[in-house]
């Protein structure tokens, strides 16, 4: 099922997509997309939407089981409060990806912006995973409460740029971050620390990365060729003392 989005207003485009989903289409191809917001939001059925062009902000927000494949770049707020499903971006993406994400997968091949994975959370088996293949801006994993964030630093458009920005893990109080190669400890927020991976971590991480490599046809051996470091919060309530001392 092909939909041409050339000059189509985002509301009309999303109506067309939802209509197609309702009639049982499970493969939808969008062409000439440029900037239309909220594509794939709240879709509950396991359809696959392939996007040619740059989709607008809030791609796959509140999504619940669908799969979105972006052939080029993505913008801000991808997977905002996403519940389940997967977003694959074959280029770079913007700021605040996976904001408040509660489940599902986001795989970005190249660079990502500021505040990626901000306030991701998990509950029992609902455990979101966001993997960025390139480099990241500041506040990576800010206020993270759960889920898994992975930064590879491998597939970047800017070789000169450092692998990650400052205030890394600010306010993080749950979940785990894995970074390929080393992290610049001077850029870590006070709320987090760098640790070695356990055997259990290695197994879990390999599983996530195998799926990432399948999506982008990458060689898993090359990705695993470097050691990973684990970033964890130092406490469950990093700002507990902010206003009054935490009870002993």
């Amino acid at each position, binding site marked *: 099922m092909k939909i041409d989005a050339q000059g189509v207003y985002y509301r009309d485009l999303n109506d067309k997509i939802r209509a197609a989903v309702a009639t049982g289409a499970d493969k939808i191809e969008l062409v000439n997309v440029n900037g239309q917001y909220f594509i794939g939001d709240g879709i509950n059925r396991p359809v696959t939407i392939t996007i040619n062009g740059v989709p607008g902000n809030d791609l796959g927000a509140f999504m619940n089981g669908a799969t979105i494949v972006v052939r080029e*770049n993505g913008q801000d707020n991808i997977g905002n409060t996403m519940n389940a499903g997967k977003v694959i971006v074959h280029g770079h993406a*913007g700021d605040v990806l996976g904001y408040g994400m509660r489940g599902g997968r986001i795989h970005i091949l190249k660079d990502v912006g*500021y505040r990626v994975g901000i306030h991701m959370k998990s509950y029992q088996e609902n455990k979101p995973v966001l993997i960025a293949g390139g480099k990241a801006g*500041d506040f990576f994993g800010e206020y993270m409460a759960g889920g898994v964030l992975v930064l590879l630093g491998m597939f970047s*458009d800017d070789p000169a740029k450092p692998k990650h920005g400052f205030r890394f893990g600010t306010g993080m109080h749950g979940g785990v971050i894995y970074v390929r190669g080393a992290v610049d400890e001077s850029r870590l927020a006070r709320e987090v620390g760098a640790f070695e991976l356990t055997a259990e971590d290695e197994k879990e991480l390999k599983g996530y990365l195998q799926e990432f490599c399948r999506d982008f046809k990458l060689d898993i051996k090359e990705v695993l060729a470097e050691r990973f470091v684990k970033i964890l919060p130092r406490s469950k309530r990093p700002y507990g003392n902010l206003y009054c001392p935490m009870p002993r």
Partner: protein
Amino acid sequence: MTNKQKPTHSFQKDISNCGLTGFISKSGQQVEGSVIIKSIALMHDRGNGLGGGFAAYGIYPDYRDFFAFHLMYENGMALQLTEEYLEQHFFIEQEEDIPTRRTPAIANPPVFKRYFVKPLQTAQYQEAIEFQKMTDEDVIVSHVMRINNEIEGAFVVSSGKNMGAFKGVGYPEDIADFFRLEEYKGHIWTAHNRFPTNTPGWWGGAHPFTLLDWSIVHNGEISSYGINKRYLEMYGYLCTMLTDTEVVAYMLDLLIRKHGLPPELASLALASPFWDMIDTFPTEERELLTAIRQVYGSALLNGPFAILFASNEGLIGLNDRVKLRPLVCAEKDDFVYMASEEAAIREICANPDRVWAPRGGEPVIAKLDKGVA
């Protein structure tokens, strides 16, 4: 002509989610208005119809040596008083209505006229030049401040050479239609789609904000508005537009034109690095940044923002130091694009050579090539 008084309440915060877009042809290629309109229109939903505006550079080549005053009049008295004022202080090479086209989307617009002027060699002018060490630009600034402050219902929308601002209440694509922007050609364009949340939109409050050939379009909120405003008033800048963005235009004029800071250093004053970052810099850089923050503490723009500021020298994009608003840039041949969303760039440049998002506090500076314009 309804006689709208000045908006009753004065507010200082313009919490918003506006859309910005702009581009420059560094080699000075003249581009018609339809291109910038297409780009800002794509971000239609970043605004709520309470403000739209454009700045265009290189649009008055025939009057390039004159200050192009764009004047907005809310009533006949404002027009008459202003024109008497202008005749007293300026040699007026040309005076005409700014061409407009009525469209249902734009309700009861004010009157817009433009005047291509140079300061008259009056006694007051001689006094200013000889005894107060003022330049022609200083004289223009003082007149702009006086018109905006003392003549009720009259506002200088822009006052630079070979450039002009076109703005008002409405979506930008409708404002462009109203001002017939497709008829203009320029080598630098910026545009703004306003989303004010706690202010009534009014024609004077739309972006861009200008002074001389400075123009600013701003997405964000300036929490330090009060500090900035009081600091600027010591240097003769009076804030009259009841919108926080105004201080950015005057601050840049002060830092760059009056105090001679290059744009890079002026940007470091507006979006200064945190002290803990400065402590990690090598000695020379640490001393420079410490000096800038000590001297220009009141110039710091606190709060989330992304701004595009243009002048006859070029186009500069800047985020606040923790990048709380989006800003994406791209390059293609001699063109540099800056916008709130990548799609707004791709709408007018399908395959840029490079797309990147600047760090917070890191200005993206695109200057016109030497000898252009």
